[in-house]
């Protein structure tokens, strides 16, 4: 653990500026993403992380679909200020337009996939580097949000694409999502986000 922490070094402000510019340029060009994902839910008291897998699709500006295929069938679509859930054939939806927390979470999920969440008004941001990869820590400033999420950690590859998202809860337990087989800007239609 100590070794892992030592391996992370703080970026200089020049390096941080360079990363931010690269990620923003990358995000602006990104109109669609599809990818596989593996999710690890870590609870300190468990012997093993709870692992689930599936496919993710994103379409500009704010449509996201997470489709879990293992070990259960479940999909959740964020679009038009609402959540659409298909839980193994049981469909439901939730209008979250009046719910500030959901609006923010939805925005953050979208922003974290694109990588572009460098908003100093919303977060205390720190820039780190480990094994040639950039890791950026975002600590929300909004106290309503900090009740749910203490920090987001995004890992970027050398092209400035998001490889992993870690959402840390106030208890220290976290959910880590690792994206793989990422494809950018392939054609996606609204039909890919039908409930």
């Amino acid at each position, binding site marked *: 653990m100590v070794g892992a922490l030592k391996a992370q070094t703080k970026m200089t402000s020049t390096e941080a500026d360079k990363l931010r510019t690269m990620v923003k340029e990358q995000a602006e060009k990104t109109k669609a993403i599809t990818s596989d994902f593996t999710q690890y*839910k870590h609870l300190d*008291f468990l012997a093993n992380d709870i692992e689930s897998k599936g496919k993710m699709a994103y379409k500009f500006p704010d449509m996201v679909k997470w489709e879990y295929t293992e070990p259960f069938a479940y999909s959740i679509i964020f679009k038009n200020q609402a959540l659409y859930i298909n839980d193994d054939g049981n469909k439901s939806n939730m209008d979250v337009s009046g719910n500030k927390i959901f609006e923010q979470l939805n925005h953050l999920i979208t922003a974290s996939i694109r990588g572009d969440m460098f908003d100093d008004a919303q977060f205390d941001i720190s820039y780190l580097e480990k094994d040639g990869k950039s890791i950026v820590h975002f600590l929300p400033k909004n106290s309503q949000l900090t009740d749910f999420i203490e920090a987001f950690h995004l890992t970027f590859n050398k092209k400035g694409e998001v490889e992993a998202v870690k959402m840390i809860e106030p*208890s220290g337990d976290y959910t880590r999502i690792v994206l793989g087989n990422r494809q950018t800007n392939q054609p996606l239609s609204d039909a890919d986000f039908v409930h």
Partner: protein
Amino acid sequence: MRILFISLCIFLATGCASYPKKNGFVLPTPAPIELLNPYFSDVSKDYVYKARIKAFDKSFGGIFIVKKLGEDHHRIVFTTEMGNTIFDFEFKNEKFEINRILPEMDKKVLKNILKRDFLALISTKPDIFEMFSKAENTLVAAEILSKKHYYWFTGEQLTKISRTAREKEKVTFLFSRINNNIAEEIRITHQNVKLEITLTLL
């Protein structure tokens, strides 16, 4: 008048019969059972279930996690499929602690229902006060939080727990697809509130 009297006798004889009697169980007591509920009793196991909850015409899902941390010590956590914690409860030496709960669920009535249900689910050795038998089946009466719970055994396998009030079933816990002391499917059904929890092992 006579018919009314006979009807009244029949009603009293059947309506007020004890829960075991109604279900055809009789004394004498069979051999004692060491572990009443084995399903969440192994400290080396992470018990992880996909949950489906139907409550008051609403239906939602999540991941239901149970861990035995020691003698009379369990942690029960419910999260969304995406990993966000909905509630995090801890049962230790009959003490119930809420480590975390979403504000929307932070209601006294709901918390009491969940506390009673989950304690019944994880209690391995509640206080036994009576036992009955019928052919190869055994019925064990025990008390949890001052409520009577009947444990149904087919042979040595626990298949159902019934919480009763005035000798009537109020809540049932059905255990099925049982392998190596793990119930792969558990259904908790309330008779007097619209609440049903179905757990499927992942």
